[in-house]
């Protein structure tokens, strides 16, 4: 314990974390609905056919953007506002700035949603944000970077914990990446060179914003909940530097066999395989941490986290051979890639976020969970739905790839895919059902009367 007799509470702005999670969950609900409706188009039962503003293509962009910027970014920012002050012992740069960023993010996401539905999209995958919103996004990212960098900078008089390494670069990368990906292909580089840059942008958005923050959060929450330090801090740093080096170099693997110069395509293969080595170190580190703590899986957050970690391992193992030029012949352009993307965005980062919310919601509201068994059902419905969707889309992808190669009429690949698309919609409904239970539980918890203050037992000292 430091100078004073009584420990000081963490400089966390709890209300802000709470509202970030609320906003994130609202957009999550919108994203789920948008995805569900778009999937109905593939069964020719799109409910809003003929309504221009709800054209399926536009709803698809709403789905992906609401996931990335509405759900994942909001929830990550909420979690960062919890974690960064607790790790650094300093509050974020400014309380007013934090709230300003909160409202700016909501305004930007709403403007994006409006722009997409009104038909102002920009043809950059994951960056469909209309061109007139882009400058505000860049300013917002810079402000976020400043807000979180100040406490990290103050804390770096001592060697930093690995989570903070990840957090300190995520916003630098994303600002640079956003400027590169949204403006250069729009104004300067058409065709092949433009595709190379858009590939970098697509990949870096996942790899240099979502992945570093996600892993940083895991390096915090897993040891804290297990009350056991991470297996090896040195190995986690190898993971960090490996990610930092290899991840930005892979973007071109989104456009294999295109007119992008071949040296770039070969290099992307090499670095995609290279990053798997790095991912293995991270995976081993987490498995070694939980080793001998089997009973910890009774705790729902740990279960979410480790399911996500295993899914992460699966997607990355998939990446390594998905990014071979040979495999690309068949699976590129198919539903295989769609399955892969869903496992990464929901099965990994979505699961981690849901685990974090499951852990923090009672502490944020000061109330115990309204009904913990709803949370268990939420976990099982989400996991089962996710697994079914993943396997189903992989199978559909292989089928489509071989049908196209066989020169069968295009319509045959559609007819053959319909059963798979029906299963996709069904598994999506499972996931939605799980989230409905969770939203209901969150709402009932927050709306319950505040329990009388009780004295909880003081946690055991950490044994090292």
């Amino acid at each position, binding site marked *: 314990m430091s100078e004073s007799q009584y420990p000081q*509470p963490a400089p966390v702005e709890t209300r802000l974390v709470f509202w970030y999670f609320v906003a994130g969950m609202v957009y999550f609900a919108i994203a789920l609905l948008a995805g569900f409706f778009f999937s109905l188009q593939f069964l020719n039962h799109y409910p809003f056919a003929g309504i221009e503003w709800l054209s399926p293509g536009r709803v698809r962009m709403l789905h992906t953007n609401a996931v990335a910027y509405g759900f994942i970014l909001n929830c990550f920012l909420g979690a960062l506002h919890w974690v960064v002050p*607790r790790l650094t012992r300093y509050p974020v740069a400014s309380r007013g700035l934090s709230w300003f960023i909160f409202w700016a993010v909501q305004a930007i996401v709403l403007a994006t949603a409006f722009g997409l539905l009104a038909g102002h999209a920009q043809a950059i995958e994951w960056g469909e944000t209309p061109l007139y919103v882009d400058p505000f996004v860049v300013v917002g990212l810079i402000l976020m970077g400043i807000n979180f960098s100040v406490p990290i900078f103050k804390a770096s008089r001592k060697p930093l914990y690995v989570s903070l390494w990840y957090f300190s670069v995520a916003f630098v990368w994303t600002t640079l990446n956003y400027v590169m990906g949204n403006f250069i292909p729009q104004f300067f580089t058409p065709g092949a060179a433009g595709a190379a840059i858009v590939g970098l942008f697509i990949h870096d958005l996942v790899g240099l914003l979502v992945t570093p923050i996600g892993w940083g959060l895991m390096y915090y929450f897993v*040891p*804290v909940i297990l009350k056991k*330090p991470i297996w090896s801090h040195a190995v986690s740093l190898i993971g960090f530097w490996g990610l930092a080096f290899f991840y930005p170099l892979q973007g071109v693997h989104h456009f294999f066999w295109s007119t992008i110069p071949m040296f770039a395509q070969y290099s992307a293969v090499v670095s995609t395989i290279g990053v798997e080595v790095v991912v293995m170190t991270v995976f081993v580190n987490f498995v070694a941490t939980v080793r001998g703590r089997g009973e910890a899986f009774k705790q729902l957050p740990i279960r979410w986290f480790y399911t996500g970690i295993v899914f992460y391992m699966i997607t990355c193992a998939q990446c390594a051979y998905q990014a071979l030029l040979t495999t690309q012949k068949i699976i590129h352009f198919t539903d295989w890639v769609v399955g892969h993307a869903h496992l990464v965005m929901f099965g990994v980062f979505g699961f981690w976020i849901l685990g974090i919310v499951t852990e923090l919601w009672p502490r944020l509201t000061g109330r115990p969970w309204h009904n913990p068994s709803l949370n268990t059902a939420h976990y099982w419905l989400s996991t089962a739905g996710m697994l079914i969707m993943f396997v189903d889309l992989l199978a559909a992808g292989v089928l489509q790839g071989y049908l196209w190669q066989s020169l069968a009429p295009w319509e045959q690949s559609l007819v053959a895919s319909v059963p798979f698309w029906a299963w996709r919609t069904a598994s999506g409904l499972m996931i939605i059902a799980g989230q409905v239970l969770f939203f209901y539980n969150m709402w009932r918890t927050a709306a319950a009367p505040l329990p009388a203050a009780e004295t909880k037992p003081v946690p055991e000292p950490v044994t090292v």
Partner: protein
Amino acid sequence: MKRPINIHRLVSWLVVLAVAIGGATFLYKLVEFANTATHEDMPGFALVSVVPYLTATFGFLLLAIWAFLRGHFRDIEQPKYDMLDQEREYDLAEQQRSHPTDPTA
């Protein structure tokens, strides 16, 4: 007499098998790469895809070695203990407060 299956040994052998297969395919790819780099229609072209990586990694390695010789990384595991100590302190502080925060109020 029936011996019970030793699950640990089984897993270990499976891992060894997987690594062996993976290693063999990796070696195969490496040989293929060497062939491409020396024989294809544009000898040396394949090297373009790895030379920048090797150069950059080498530079980074030098930086790390320099830092190690200057005495960094000696206490590399310390932050993970500090972090948990701090967390325990914050948990204590939270419990000493008379009322939990109520953000919905």
